[in-house]
C-alpha cells in the first residue's frame, strides 16, 4: 500500500492480514460467497457489519466484468431480427433497476434506524442489505448500459428521454419482507428470461452477454433471499408476507405473466419492467413458466422453511398464514 504524505513523499506501508472470522483467523480466505445464514452470522457467529461488508466486497470484485469488452465480442452481422428485439426489450427493462436499488438503499436505512433500539440484529440485517444495494446498483448499471448501447449501435428504435424518465420512477415503499421477496422473484423472472435468450441466440458474443447477465441476476436473487430469510429468522417478520408476494405473481392473471396478460394494470406511480416487454409477431419471446414457478417455490422454502410444490399450494399456505 502506498500513502502520499503531506510532503508528497511515498511511504510503503505493509498492512498485516486481519484475522478472518470465516477461517478461524488464518491468513488465507476462502472463495467469496453470499452469507446465506445471515441471522446466524450476526448472532451466534458474532460477525460485524464490517465483516459482512468485506465479504460483499470480495464477492463483488470476483464477479466484475467489462461491458466494453463484452460488447466488443458481439458480431452484429450474425444477429437476427429476433435477437435484436431481445436486446431492445432487455435495455428498456433494465432502466427500472436503478430506481429499485435507490429505493432499497433508502428504505433499508430507514428500517435500520426504526429497529435500532428495539432489535439491533434486525437493524444490522437492514444495514447489511442497504450496504449491498450499492453493488446491486453498480452491477445492474452494467446490464442497462450493455443492452442500450447495443440497441444504439444497431440503430434500433431509440429510447426517448421521456421513456427513460418514466422508467426511472421510484417504487412506493412497502413492508421490507414483501419488498425483498418481490425483488427476489423479479430476479428469478429476469434470470430465466435471459437464460432462455442465451439458449436461442447463435452469436457467441451476444450469447455470452445474456448468460453473464442471467448469472448476475441469479446472484442478486440469492442475496435477496438471504436478506429475506434473515428477517424471518429474526422473528420480526412473518412468512405470510413472502407468500403474499409469491401469490401475487403466481395467481391466475398474476405478475409472472407480465405483458402477456389480457389486461395489465395501469400504474402512475412506477414501472414494473415485466409489464412493459413488447411481444412482436414472429419474434422469439422467453417464457419457461414452469422453471420460474420452481425457482419461486425454492425461494419460498429458503426464506420461510415452508415447502410448496404448486401454485395452489402457495395460495392455500398463504391463506392459512393470513387467518381470519
Amino acid at each position, binding site marked *: 500500500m502506498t500513502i502520499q504524505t503531506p510532503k508528497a513523499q511515498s511511504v510503503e506501508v505493509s498492512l498485516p492480514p486481519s484475522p478472518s472470522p470465516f477461517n478461524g483467523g488464518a491468513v488465507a480466505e476462502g472463495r467469496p460467497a453470499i452469507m446465506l445464514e445471515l441471522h446466524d452470522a450476526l448472532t451466534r457467529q458474532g460477525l460485524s457489519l464490517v465483516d459482512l461488508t468485506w465479504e460483499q466486497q470480495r464477492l463483488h470484485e470476483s464477479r466484475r466484468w467489462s461491458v466494453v469488452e463484452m460488447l466488443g465480442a458481439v458480431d452484429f452481422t450474425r444477429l437476427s431480427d429476433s435477437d435484436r428485439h431481445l436486446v431492445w426489450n432487455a435495455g428498456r427493462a433494465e432502466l427500472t433497476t436503478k430506481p429499485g436499488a435507490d429505493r432499497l438503499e433508502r428504505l433499508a436505512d430507514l428500517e435500520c434506524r426504526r429497529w435500532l433500539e428495539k432489535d439491533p440484529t434486525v437493524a444490522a440485517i437492514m444495514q447489511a442489505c442497504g450496504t449491498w444495494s450499492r453493488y446491486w446498483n453498480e452491477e445492474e448499471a452494467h446490464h442497462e448500459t450493455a443492452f442500450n448501447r447495443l440497441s444504439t449501435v444497431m440503430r434500433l428504435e431509440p429510447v426517448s428521454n421521456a421513456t427513460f424518465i418514466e422508467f426511472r420512477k421510484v417504487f412506493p415503499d412497502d413492508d421490507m419482507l414483501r419488498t425483498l421477496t418481490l425483488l427476489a422473484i423479479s430476479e428469478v423472472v429476469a434470470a430465466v428470461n435471459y437464460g432462455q435468450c442465451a439458449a436461442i441466440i447463435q452469436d457467441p458474443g451476444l450469447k455470452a452477454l445474456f448468460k453473464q447477465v442471467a448469472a448476475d441476476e441469479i446472484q442478486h436473487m440469492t442475496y435477496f433471499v438471504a436478506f429475506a430469510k434473515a428477517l424471518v429468522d429474526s422473528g420480526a417478520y412473518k412468512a405470510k408476507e413472502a407468500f403474499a*408476494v409469491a401469490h401475487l405473481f403466481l*395467481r391466475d392473471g398474476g405478475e409472472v405473466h407480465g405483458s402477456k396478460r389480457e389486461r395489465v394494470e395501469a400504474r402512475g406511480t412506477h414501472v414494473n419492467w415485466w409489464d412493459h416487454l413488447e411481444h412482436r409477431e414472429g419474434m422469439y419471446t422467453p417464457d419457461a413458466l414452469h422453471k420460474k414457478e420452481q425457482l419461486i417455490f425454492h425461494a419460498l422454502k429458503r426464506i420461510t422453511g415452508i415447502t410448496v410444490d404448486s401454485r395452489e399450494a402457495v395460495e392455500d399456505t398463504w391463506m392459512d398464514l393470513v387467518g*381470519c
Partner: protein
Amino acid sequence: MHDARELESYIRRKFAEHVGLSEAELFSEDLTLAALISRSPKMTNSVDLMEAFARTSNGLRKDYGLRVRLPALSLDTPVSKVLDVFLHEVLNPERKSA
C-alpha cells in the same frame, strides 16, 4: 343451502372490517379498489387488498364451511362488482374466479 342475503350481509361486514372503512363509506359510494386502497387506514397497496379478500374468504370458510377462491380484479373495479364476484363464488362453489 345458505341464505344469499345473510351471506351478502356477512361479506359486506367482514370486508369493511378488514379494509378498515365503514360499510356505508365502502358501499354507498361504490368505491373502486384503487380508491379503497387510498382511503383505507390499513392498506398500502394491492397486496393488502388481496389480504382483505383472503381474510373475508377465510371467515366464510370458518363460519359457513364455504371455500371461496380469491378473485383477481383490476384496481378500477367498483366494490359492488367485488361483492357480486364473492356472492357468485359462494353460490357456485364449483367455479373458480377468472
